[in-house]
């Protein structure tokens, strides 16, 4: 119950931050990506702002034997493996991000702010995830297991 509450709290703070920062607005995100046109650099500060607490958090994490409310850390281990899946996946994701100005966090966040548009995006996103699951489990059964390194 404690873990569920902490996850909910983390999600709420995350969603509130996305909303306050402007990142939940697809037009603003597309403006940020439009560096060859009417570039709006404001959202660079979102990444900068998010980095600060996390840079500190990783340093603290390195000194902890276990997290404060769970028995052990469950973190991506393989931080150096570069392969075609990583690159192709990132490239496809980037295209989708550019088309609508939405990545997964803002898409889900916008369910509260613009339900119809966001629901369409989120349903399609879950469809894309289901397609990935179907493709990997049928064609290469080992592939899904190989995704132990899950930054997600």
């Amino acid at each position, binding site marked *: 119950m404690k873990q569920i509450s902490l996850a909910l709290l983390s999600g709420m703070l995350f969603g509130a931050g996305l909303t306050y920062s402007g990142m939940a607005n697809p037009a603003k995100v597309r403006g940020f990506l439009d560096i060859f046109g009417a570039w709006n650099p404001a959202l660079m500060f*979102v990444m900068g702002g998010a980095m600060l607490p996390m840079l500190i958090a990783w340093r603290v994490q390195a000194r902890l034997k276990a997290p404060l*409310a*769970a028995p052990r850390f469950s973190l991506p281990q393989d931080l150096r493996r570069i392969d075609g899946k990583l690159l192709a996946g990132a490239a496809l994701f980037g295209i989708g991000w550019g088309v609508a100005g939405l990545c997964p966090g803002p898409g889900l966040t916008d369910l509260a702010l613009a339900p119809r548009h966001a629901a369409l995006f989120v349903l399609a996103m879950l469809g894309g995830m289901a397609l*990935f699951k179907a493709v990997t489990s049928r064609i290469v059964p080992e592939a899904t297991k190989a995704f132990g390194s899950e930054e997600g």
Partner: protein
Amino acid sequence: MPEAWLHALVGGLMIGGAAALMLLSLGRVAGVSGLSARAAGLAETGAPPGLALSFIIGLPLGAWLMARLIGGVALHFPPSAAALVVAGLLVGFGTRLGSGCTSGHGVCGMSRFSTRSVLATLVFMASGVATVALMNLAGLP
């Protein structure tokens, strides 16, 4: 400093704070694509589904509270439903294939100096920039 930049910075600090809370209390990376796949039963590995689901439910809940607090937010979406569907499919498939999105690779992975995440972030940024530039060239909204 323009007000939009200050909002971006403060909002970014909240996002990073949320990810830090997840990391230090639950020992997990706050990667939204991975968590949503787990919550929807579409991933074999990852956080316990209940935990993933409560994080995911938190996103719109926090947004709703923040919108009430600041008196509403203006959002502008692409005009066509087709754009949202195509984008959603690509984002869903791509983030699973590439094991992460803006939060997992961008916020959590880059701050950990993960080579994989830095490279993934550079690739999706470049591909997002190229997509917007090409759509503008083609006159697409």
